[in-house]
């Protein structure tokens, strides 16, 4: 009986997240369109509201092409690895008090592990396709993940030190429901590092070097088509949502807000995620792409020292005050 309930919960979460992924693509196109003084999708449904559904149907029925020289098994496995790893990360997110699929004590660590696993999918895709563009995309992804995973992890160490837990629900509870209790204020350096590393981890502009359209056609997913390409796409958007959730949980006080919303406890959590997603899209519409060496410079010379400094400062303050 318990298994059945969990199964139903998983299905509901899956459906809700997939709907969000679909409409995240819609709002991304809409917002970027309006920021570029265009309209974005307008034809399917009222103001193009059915566009993501049309896109989904289209990608289902597109021809599934496997290049002749590709290594078939990793080529087929790569998008699945990407998507499942990102989906698995959703399990530990607390959407509201008690609204969590797996309330495990290593939640934060689990998310780190899963988001790194997802980049294995990218690297495998780049390698297995046997094409120069995908190979370069995969190579870049590897280097990017290695350098940004460190600062990403280190930036959250301060949060772990303050809350004394890796359990995401405990981290939210440790911040309390007051505005000043958010870890955004004591951990402002960590928040900055987190934001930059978050963009790099999800391969978003200005760090979208693995899929740099102008140089690498489409990077690691150049040779993918139809449903497999859509799976990479879903993985990217779920990745954005997972990162936004971590940001919300660790820095913005999770599901706590100015007032309680009856009947829908995750209101503030979802609201904060939407703000994060909007900022993702906003940045994409504004920033140009970093050069590869600049990306490495920022990662190793700026973000890692900054996050280390933040850990030391947090430790000192905690030793004297807390």
């Amino acid at each position, binding site marked *: 009986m318990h298994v059945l309930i969990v199964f139903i919960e998983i299905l509901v979460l899956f459906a809700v997240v997939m709907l969000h992924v679909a409409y995240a693509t819609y709002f991304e196109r809409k917002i970027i369109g309006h920021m570029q*003084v265009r309209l974005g999708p*307008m034809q399917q449904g009222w103001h193009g509201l059915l566009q993501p559904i049309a896109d989904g149907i289209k990608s289902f029925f597109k021809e599934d092409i496997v290049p002749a020289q590709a290594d078939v098994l990793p080529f087929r496995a790569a998008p699945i690895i990407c998507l499942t790893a990102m989906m698995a990360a959703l399990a530990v997110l607390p959407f509201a008090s008690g609204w969590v699929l797996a309330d495990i004590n290593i939640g934060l660590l689990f998310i780190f592990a899963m988001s790194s696993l997802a980049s294995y999918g990218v690297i495998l895709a780049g390698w297995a396709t046997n094409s120069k563009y995908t190979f370069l995309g995969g190579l870049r992804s590897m280097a990017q993940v290695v350098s940004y995973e460190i600062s990403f992890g280190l930036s959250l160490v301060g949060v772990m030190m303050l809350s004394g837990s890796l359990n995401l629900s405990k981290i939210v509870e440790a911040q309390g429901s007051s505005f000043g209790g958010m870890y955004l204020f004591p951990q402002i350096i960590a928040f900055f590092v987190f934001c930059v590393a978050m963009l790099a981890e999800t391969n978003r502009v200005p760090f979208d070097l693995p899929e740099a359209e102008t140089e690498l056609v489409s990077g690691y997913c150049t040779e993918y088509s139809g449903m497999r390409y859509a799976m990479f796409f879903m993985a990217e958007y779920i990745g954005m949502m997972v990162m936004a959730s971590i940001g919300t949980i660790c820095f913005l006080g999770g599901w706590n807000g100015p007032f309680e919303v009856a009947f829908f406890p995750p209101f503030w959590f979802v609201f904060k995620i939407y703000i994060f997603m909007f900022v993702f899209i906003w940045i994409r519409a*504004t920033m140009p792409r970093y050069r590869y060496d600049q990306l490495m410079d920022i990662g190793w010379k700026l973000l890692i020292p900054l996050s280390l400094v933040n850990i030391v400062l947090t430790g000192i303050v905690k030793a004297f005050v807390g």
Partner: protein
Amino acid sequence: MQIQYKPKRNLLQTILHVELLQGMALTLRTLFSKPITRQYPEERPDVQLGFRGQHALVRDEETGASKCVACMRCVTVCPSRCIRIRFHEDEDTSARVVDSYDIEALRCVYCGFCEEVCPVNALILTEVFEYSGFQREDIFFDQEALLDNWDKFAESKGGKIGSYVNPFWRPRGMNADKLTAAKRIDVPDEWTIEGQVVGKNFKAKGTE
């Protein structure tokens, strides 16, 4: 032209990434500005006076044929040489009679010189801009096709086509008394300086 270098930043501005924030503010402003997109098939563009679209030979309301007198001016002036006229002289009246009038519209650059130079307003460029074909021959207009273009255009304008003449059909900067009778079109005052057609924009600039 003076090149505007970017101003120097101080340390605080460097730390706070002021330029990035300025860029973000700009995109946020344009998010709420009105998009300039025109939803084309539903929302059609306003065709301005002087638009140069599909070619047509004006059908004379009295004779039912083209007004062309085979003066060959359009053939001479055409920079892409896409007009070809064959004619013979009538034995009795020694008037020129057009045998064939062909425009290879694929070669046309839509400069509008032909309609400017035509002394009888026989050849015009209509406001029609949507025409295409599956073969090149479909966009090769002979005399019948050109007259047909005119009929279709006249129909689309609702029959009030006798007044479809506009100041762009006459050569610029020429006094009206130097023009043939058909070219002496009343031009709105805002288009002319000292009796010469110069265009609205030029006049607006000239009087500033």
